[in-house]
């Protein structure tokens, strides 16, 4: 593994992504210490421009934008990582089963996956959140539900390619259980594309979350970047920073994750590594 880290840090886009993500992560972790108390708390007169008494000014109700930003980072990262974890777990399980066993089971699972893929993603997420009532949990569920099909298809493809390799036959010949072959031998060989897709799914999840909370479907008790843009939208003419700054935060975070994903792809993909 040290070789992996050296290669990853030697990759320019991965390094930039990692540095930015580290800053966002530290801000998110330090939010309760930097800005104690609720980010919904009023601290000053409303519509204070940025770089005055408060770093990023205050919003319509006199809330500190910088505090919202730091607490919003927690929400975005948490939802992005949670939703991706669920999506990757479900997708891997279904894709692995379909790819390993093949036949009728594969058909059934893949048709189901395609069914989920046909449905317009964002609309589906909106409806799920609307029905489940907006909360962190329902947002995570909704994003996971719309994100797993991609992972499932990828894992199935990898498993299909591995299924008839000699080492798999050897394992079966040794009398290993299916579960052991799948999890101990085949899956570790497919890990790198799963990691790359997973990292890109985090970026998409953050974008979906921000769009949901922009439309007013966010968890009403938790500060998030999309919510800040949504509530600042009406005052675009008088207070541009209310929308601009949280948007920049989303842009930078998602960009960093994409860069890291690309870097991971370059480092983990053995075909590119040799060229």
């Amino acid at each position, binding site marked *: 593994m040290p070789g992996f880290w050296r290669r990853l840090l030697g990759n320019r886009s991965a390094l930039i992504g990692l540095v930015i993500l580290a800053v966002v992560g530290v801000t998110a972790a330090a939010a309760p210490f930097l800005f104690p108390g609720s980010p919904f708390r009023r601290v000053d007169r409303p519509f204070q421009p940025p770089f005055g008494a408060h770093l990023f000014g205050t919003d319509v109700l006199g809330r500190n934008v910088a505090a919202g930003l730091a607490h919003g980072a927690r929400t975005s990262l948490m939802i992005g990582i949670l939703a991706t974890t669920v999506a990757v777990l479900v997708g891997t399980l279904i894709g692995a089963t379909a790819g390993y066993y093949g036949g009728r089971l594969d058909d059934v699972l893949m048709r189901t996956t395609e069914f989920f893929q046909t449905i*317009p993603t964002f*609309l589906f997420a*909106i*409806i799920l959140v609307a*029905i489940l009532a907006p909360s962190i949990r329902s947002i995570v569920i909704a994003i996971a539900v719309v994100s797993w099909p991609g992972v499932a298809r990828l894992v199935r493809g990898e498993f299909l390619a591995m299924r008839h390799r000699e080492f798999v036959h050897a394992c079966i010949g040794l009398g290993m259980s299916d579960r052991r072959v799948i999890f101990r031998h085949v899956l570790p060989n497919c890990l790198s594309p799963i990691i790359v897709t997973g990292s890109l799914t985090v970026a998409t999840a953050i974008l979906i979350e921000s*769009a949901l909370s922009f*439309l007013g479907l966010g968890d009403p008790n938790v500060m998030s970047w999309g919510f800040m*843009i949504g509530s600042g*939208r009406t005052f675009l003419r008088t207070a541009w920073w209310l929308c601009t700054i949280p948007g920049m935060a989303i*842009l930078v975070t998602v960009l960093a994750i994409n860069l890291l994903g690309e870097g991971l792809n370059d480092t983990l993909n053995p075909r590119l590594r040799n060229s």
Partner: protein
Amino acid sequence: MLAGEAGSATPEYMAQLRQRFGLDQPVLVQLALYMKNMVALDLGFSFRYNMPVLTLILNRLGPTLLLMGVTLVLSVGAGVTLGILAASRAKRWRDTLISILALVSYATPLFWIGLMLVVVFSLKLDWLPTSGMETVAAFHEGWSRVLDIARHLILPAVTLSLFYMALYTRLMRAAMLEQAGMDYVTTARAKGLSEGRITLAHVVRNAVLPVVTVAGVQLGGLLGGSIVVESVFAWPGLGFLAFQALFARDFNLLLGIFFLSASLVVVVNLGVDLLYTFLDPRIQV
């Protein structure tokens, strides 16, 4: 919910409401009824608008299709062009510039870029209208109306295009570079064709295939994006309707839109498959 807004909620009124919505039936019966109606394209009744859902949706379909069509053409056109430009000078400054542009647009939330465009072009420069589809008060007729709608269309279409343009640029660039190493390119070069002709007549035709596939697959995503963009620009299409339905808790309407857009995606995917055989005669139906 409706009762709360009416201001009074006597037990009789509640019972009457429940009966009108069929809520006094068991859930399974309600589901079966909905399914049965759906087969007959009866998507139910929107109690908010007091109109059948289907009529409401069909009224709003036109603006959405207009927006999506323009976006599709704009994003594929710009994406393919930028992809060609980047690939033909791979690893040079033009390539780097285009790649960075694509990477940044790919990471930008749609609604935010929409709002920023409004700030710059509508509020600061005052060139373009902020929202709506036409200036209702002006009563434009004929060509001036078309022009008016086009002016309103620019910002939403550009907003929605940016993300997909980035996607297609990256795809096109990768496909061009992959195709450029193929044997037939060497053959064409050996025949003495000019580089420009090789690129345009040979490489692009092969490289554009994956872009078309993805453009078809992304159509569902485009529809989702149009919800956000339409609600930013108050564009009177399906997405804006979905947004309003969401807040009115008008689930009949929301489900209707959902059903119709899923069907739309299936139809378009079929269309893309047919287009494929046209673009690449090697593929048989």
